[in-house]
């Protein structure tokens, strides 16, 4: 589904990604771990089409298409979803209105009928139960004044409503209390299916206790320094990153 080949990218003329290779197949969940500043968010943002990054080498193909050539909205319509590490506040824009606009934009792209407000509200309320968000959040401005944990739950809600094919979750488990962590895990597991793939950027083993990944990668200094199965995460929790990164930065 997703194939990243020798991806190099700069931020403000500094090389951050130095040759990433990663293959993610439908049905798989990959965890990406690694020290702060190693380039995890950079990778996720580039995949979603955020500005401010310059790809200098390499390619990314998504379902056989050149992902890097697509607009962010085209990627979203093709099923790519990024749960941001720092979800953005949009003052004055109603949360449910925003979500409905997104939902209908994607439907329109697929040539499907637009869904009216009443029908959409029913759909959202069902999903909200799953992530345990109070309906009062629907009528607040997008992420405005939401607590850190509420913003993360809202990202999961959006993911559940938009039902992406490829979900990239950038530290959606950070800063969550234990109940919220379970809720986020529940949301992720609810979407897990043979047609879908997910890439979870995380610092903690604890999420992986609830969402068992197929592969675990360590990103260090702009490269994948090590890949393994779920036991790698446990080992990292025990030993830290030094033993992996020692070789990578050389």
């Amino acid at each position, binding site marked *: 589904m997703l194939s990243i080949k020798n991806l190099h990218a700069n931020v403000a003329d500094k090389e951050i990604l130095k040759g990433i290779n990663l293959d993610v197949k439908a049905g798989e969940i990959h965890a990406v771990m690694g020290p702060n500043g190693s380039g995890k968010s950079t990778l996720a943002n580039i995949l979603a089409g955020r500005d401010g990054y310059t790809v200098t080498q390499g390619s990314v193909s998504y379902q056989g298409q050149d992902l890097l050539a697509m607009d962010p909205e085209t990627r979203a319509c093709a099923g790519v979803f990024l749960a941001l590490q720092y979800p953005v506040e949009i003052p004055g824009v109603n949360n449910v209105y925003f979500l409905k606009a997104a939902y209908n934009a994607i439907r329109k792209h697929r040539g499907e009928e637009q869904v009216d407000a009443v029908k959409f509200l029913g759909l959202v309320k069902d999903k909200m139960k799953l992530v345990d968000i109070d309906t009062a959040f629907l009528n607040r401005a997008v992420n405005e004044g939401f607590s850190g944990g509420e913003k993360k739950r809202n990202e999961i809600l*959006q993911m559940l409503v938009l039902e992406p094919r490829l979900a990239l979750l950038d530290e959606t488990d950070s800063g969550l209390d234990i109940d919220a962590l379970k809720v986020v895990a529940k949301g992720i597991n609810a979407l897990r299916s043979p047609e879908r793939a997910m890439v979870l950027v995380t610092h903690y083993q604890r999420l992986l206790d609830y969402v068992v990944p197929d592969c675990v990668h360590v990103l260090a200094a702009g490269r994948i320094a090590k890949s393994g199965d779920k036991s790698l995460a446990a080992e990292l929790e025990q030993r830290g990153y030094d033993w992996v990164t020692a070789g990578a930065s050389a």
Partner: protein
Amino acid sequence: MAKRASDVEKLVRSEYRHGFVTDIEADTVPPGLNEDVIRLISAKKAEPEFMREWRLKAYRRWITMQEPHWAHVQHSPIDYQAISYYSAPKTQPQEDGPKSLKDVDPKLLETYEKLGVPLHERAKLAGVAVDAVFDSVSVATTFRKKLADVGIIFCSFSYAVQNHPQLVEQYLGSVVPYSDNFFASLNSAVFSDGSFVFVPKGVRCPMELSTYFRMNAANTGQFERTLIIAEEGAYVSYLEGCTAPMRDKNQLHAAVVELIALEGAHIKYSTVQNWYPGDANGQGGIYNFVTKRGDCRGANSHIAWTQVETGSAITWKYPSVLLRGDNSIGEFYSVAVTNNFQQADTGTKMVHIGKNTRSTIVSKGISAGRSQNSYRGLVKVVGAAENARNYTQCDALLLSNQCGAHTFPYMEVKNPTAKVEHEATTSKIDDDQLFYCRSRGISAEDAVNMVVSGFCKDVFKELPMEFAVEAQGLLAVSLEGAVG
């Protein structure tokens, strides 16, 4: 970032949708202005003597005045002798307007249909009474009868001059005197028509009242005059909408609006102004020089101005409130959008005179293209105004690197018990917000509209429901291709 900027640039190139011309024979006075022209206008309208004399006094004052140049706008000199001061569709009965819609030229009705303002009373705008002004004359006022049943007078200004002369004489010029300023004096001399509203004591107007201004004839000016009087305890919500055909010459629009709120009265005045702004190169468009002032004459009275300004080549407009009654309230909510080469210099004046008076100013300026958008506001608290309160919030949003946003807040506080607060922000449209929308599948264009609408929320929520939707639509049109 540069990449997204150019994406957004594409979005702003939009066409003015109301730019068609109605092919109708008009009775147009030759260009030029002198006392004879004024007498002619007055005679065409069969006005009583007081009206003609008032016009002449205003004209004599006007010729002694200089065109003001303090606003942050630039335009080539206006040749006031090249403008025609009166134009009326020939088919329109001249004396006192059509008796019913049956008397209205079908071409005119069609024009308003095209503009989305159907004049048929049972049509889409049910519940909104409309007065339609086409060039210099009022074409039709709907629902007049139903309003009359509760004692409300809603009619064209000319009709009021003939049928309610004592009210006109009592209130006309009592808020904006004929000597007030250059454009107000010009208007007082030559105004052709407009709307008149009188809501008697204790009456709550049962529907939204609305006037729709349409400038059709070329080389004419439009000088309408609106007078709204709300007696003790009365309430009225009034909306004004405007469009004009696309022409490559500039057209002048110099209106005067006077609002009078007696004790306990509440007037809400909302404007959605979408005059032709000129083309993408700055050719043509309306010069909109308007004087709007409300007088909270009685205690506990309340006047609120809400405006959404997306049109005109140049806008010069400062709806104001004189807070004379004790405990009176003045509000000003404004969204001003400028794109391409548009220039807007707009804001408000709140003059605190009575005790415990309060005013709120919320101004949202959005600039795109190479436009210039200025907020100019005055908060004045006179010595006797105990416990005056003002809160001003001025936010500017920039959608391009070549546009300008300027804030000129003036304060004159003569009473130490006054509390005056001013907050101002200027920011470039947020790339992260746009990305966030787009990453959810929302197109770049819709993302801009969404973020800008959110920015304007505090103003849109003050508009009557139907018009809030229209305003949002207008915003989308005027911003097409706006970011860069």
